[in-house]
């Protein structure tokens, strides 16, 4: 409950902060501060001090993993608001409103992190999504932004419909929304029950943008102002996966009948995602759109963690989220600094800003899964967690071969930065603080890639 309260209160606070804080940078600092408060409240909750504990008739539950996931997303959020602190005013003047929307999204994630009842899952996902529809359309005078908002909203409504139908069917079969009753469900209405799950899984696929429900992602991520697509691609996607993995924990994916069918479904989703995502990304001229498709591909890799829900896969998913978040935030920040979004804008970046070129390379190598960056271990972990089932080897090989395609379009950007010359002699100037943050992010990326236990050891410091 702590995390829900603090994040919701922060959102409300921000709705009115515009009256007091006129300086836009102070808004970001306040946001970072409030995120830290949320992190602390999360740790407090984990250590057993929960506000109103036991007063919500089993609707909410403190699950260590989920709360940790939320905390980690907040940490990524701190990095996100600090790095982008000057960018929030780009889409429009209403910085405090944008911040409020971002914090309401966090509230949604907080609900997802604590739900013990499918109704609350639904509410959490809605709270997470609705602010995003507004954020997508925040650049009001840009056609593409409006288009993104409308598209996202319509598609989101569609997937909400799917989810509701799924939940209803599950309810109809098991007679309850409570997770523990669904787990103990006796198999009387099998077909309805499983159909419900398939619909639920598909609608969650929509939220994390994997095929066959990914088609909205490139347009929306491209049209949304870059600052906010950075948020959607990292933190929101993390929230989506949190919902995914916690809801699947109550689905008997190890049982005989479900096991195989579930595995086929997941394999189909993954392969389709990787093929469509990779080959579409390869053809893009715009780097932002390429990154949008690449986020589809990365989500496809994260799906590997869902083959078996156990400690390993949970750790792998969390690690992947952190790694992907660190890389993407840096990349999207770089996109706000280049003249336009095409590959050409990256030509000669190593000359006009060696630092940006270096951090971009590290982030891209991380996405490509090259060792010494955390991206490699992230891929290694998720693929490993899927290997409990030996026949997944074919899938793993296919995924890695398709990952070679992704290496191709990632290094295209590196090639432009280092090997091609640009006519544009403009030097890009960055403030000391930004330089420090970019270096910090890349250093963390490498540190996690060399010593992955860093993350667990750090989190363990704060838990009794």
């Amino acid at each position, binding site marked *: 409950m702590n995390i829900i309260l603090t994040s919701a209160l922060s959102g409300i606070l921000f709705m009115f902060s515009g009256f007091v804080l006129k300086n836009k940078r102070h808004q970001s600092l306040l946001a970072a501060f409030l995120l830290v408060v949320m992190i602390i409240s999360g740790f407090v909750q984990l250590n057993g001090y929960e506000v109103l504990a036991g007063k919500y008739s089993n609707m909410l539950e403190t699950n260590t993993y989920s709360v940790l996931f939320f905390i980690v997303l907040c940490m990524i959020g701190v990095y996100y608001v600090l790095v982008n602190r000057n960018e929030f005013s780009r889409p429009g003047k209403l910085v405090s409103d944008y911040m409020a929307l971002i914090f309401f999204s966090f509230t949604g994630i907080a609900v997802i992190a604590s739900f013990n009842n499918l109704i609350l899952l639904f509410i959490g996902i809605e709270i997470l999504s609705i602010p995003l529809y507004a954020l997508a359309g925040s650049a009001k005078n840009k056609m593409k932004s409006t288009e993104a908002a409308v598209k996202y909203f319509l598609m989101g409504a569609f997937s909400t419909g799917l989810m509701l139908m799924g939940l209803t069917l599950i309810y109809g079969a098991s007679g309850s929304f409570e997770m523990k009753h669904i787990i103990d469900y006796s198999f009387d209405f099998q077909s309805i029950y499983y159909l419900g799950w398939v619909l639920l899984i598909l609608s969650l696929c929509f939220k994390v943008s994997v095929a066959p429900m990914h088609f909205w992602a490139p347009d929306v991520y491209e049209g949304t102002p870059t600052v906010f697509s950075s948020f959607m691609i990292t933190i929101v996607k993390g929230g989506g996966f949190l919902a995914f993995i916690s809801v699947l924990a109550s689905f008997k994916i190890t049982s005989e009948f479900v096991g195989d069918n579930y595995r086929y479904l997941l394999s189909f989703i993954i392969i389709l995602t990787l093929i469509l995502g990779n080959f579409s990304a390869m053809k893009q001229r715009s780097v932002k759109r390429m990154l949008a498709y690449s986020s589809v591909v990365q989500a496809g890799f994260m799906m590997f963690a869902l083959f078996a829900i156990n400690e390993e896969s949970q750790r792998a998913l969390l690690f992947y989220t952190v790694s992907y978040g660190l890389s993407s935030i840096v990349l999207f920040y770089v996109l706000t600094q280049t003249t336009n979004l095409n590959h050409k804008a990256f030509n000669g970046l190593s000359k006009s800003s060696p630092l940006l070129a270096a951090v971009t390379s590290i982030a891209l190598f991380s996405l490509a*899964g*090259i060792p010494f960056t955390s991206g490699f271990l992230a891929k290694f972990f998720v693929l490993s967690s899927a*290997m409990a089932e030996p026949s997944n080897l074919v899938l793993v090989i296919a995924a890695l*071969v398709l990952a*070679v395609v992704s290496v191709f379009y990632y290094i295209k950007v590196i*090639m432009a930065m280092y*090997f091609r010359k640009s006519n544009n002699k403009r030097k890009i100037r960055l403030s000391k603080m930004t330089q420090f943050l970019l270096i910090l992010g890349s250093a963390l990326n490498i540190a996690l890639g060399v010593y992955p236990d860093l993350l667990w050891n750090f989190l363990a410091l704060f838990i009794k």
Partner: protein
Amino acid sequence: MLLSLLILLPLVFGLGLTLVKHNKTLGFVGTAVSIYLFIFSLFLLFTDNPIGYEKTYPWFNFGGVDAYISLSIKGLGGTMVLLTSFVYMVLFIYFSNIKKAYPNTFYGLLLVTFAGLNGVFMAQDLLLFYFFWEIVLIPMYYLIGIWGMKRLRITANTTFFIYTVLGSFLMLAGIIFIGFHLKPESFLLEDVIKVTSSYGNLHLLALLFLIAFAIKIPLFPLHSWQPPVYKASATPVTIILSALMAKMGLFAVVNWLFTLFPNISENTDKLLYVVGFGLVYASLIALTSNNVKKIIAFSSIAHLALVFMSLYTQSEIGLKGAYFQMFSHGVVVLGMWLAYDYMHRKHNLTDIKSIGGIALVDPAIAVFFTFFALANLALPLTSSFIGEFLMINALFSYNIVLCIMACIGAILSAAYNLRLITAILFGKRENITDKKVKFSRTLYIVFGLISFVILLLGVYPTLIFDLL
């Protein structure tokens, strides 16, 4: 800790150098580091060293399988470390003597590669090995791309990167399968062997590794990335690629493929005919092409194919010869490339048709280059002779057809090496200066050192055999 110095020292200095601005070339830092490491590895290998040959630190644990940072310089790995530091030492002495040859970043990246190579040769943990295997790729990618030949570099580099990453990712799939399906206690070599040897049929798994290694060596038909890359990249980079990175593949075949899958060479022996065909094919291309870099590149493919065939016989003699040749080829090819680089700078040599008579104006390089070319065709008294003799010997008792292929390769090798030296050193004087060229003292030291090693090992091969 001292063993990891072989990795940390070049890494730290390398990263440091990349950050230094271009004003003053600090090639001497690289020279100092590599001389120090050469002496250090000599000391480690040839004395009763108190530091020890092995070191293991815990790294991380995932899914009940431990990964360790485990290093060792025993056996073939130690020889390769020695070769690496020797090649680097000579390379740095040669290039830091040339004024304004390359900026600091270049030398920095070279040193980072040094660290990665040492890591590959010393790693005793499968995951750590994979780590270093890939890390070598990154500085290489920049080295080829930024300082390569204008026209070719981007396509050549992309092909190179995609090819090697494809191989590595296949190997990664294999590693994941071993780690999380066969479930060894840890990724340490000894633990992994336990599970792979007790598990039944693992040919497909072995194939994943083999493809990765074959791409690095490179073996026919996976070699097509190599000639354009050799041609496009700056000479120091080409040297690292051909003298050291190709050895990574061969080394991995010995140290990982053969130990993890002891039966692999019996079950995939048909493969050797393809490799043998590749040997003859590469030799023929070397014989017919006119670009010097291309000739050396294809000669390298041919020689390494022979080494691979000999390794695959798994006979005592074949392995011994192959190990020896791996060291020897590194030294000889270093000499060839440096001599080429010198002639390229002084006499604008790129194509054998357009130039001739270098011996008339520059007798010193003519002597050295002739010597290296003769070493390359495995003349007795040079180190390659010992290796090649043992290898062909092993192939003869293994399979006569393969032996004939190897012999054809040896004959063709003589043909293209002689063609090379006659065309550029002798013959009519063409496109070169009239004045005699002065050969500096450093150059005498560099080329003398390489020739000395070739001769020494040709006469007294026990030096290397004792290390194995």
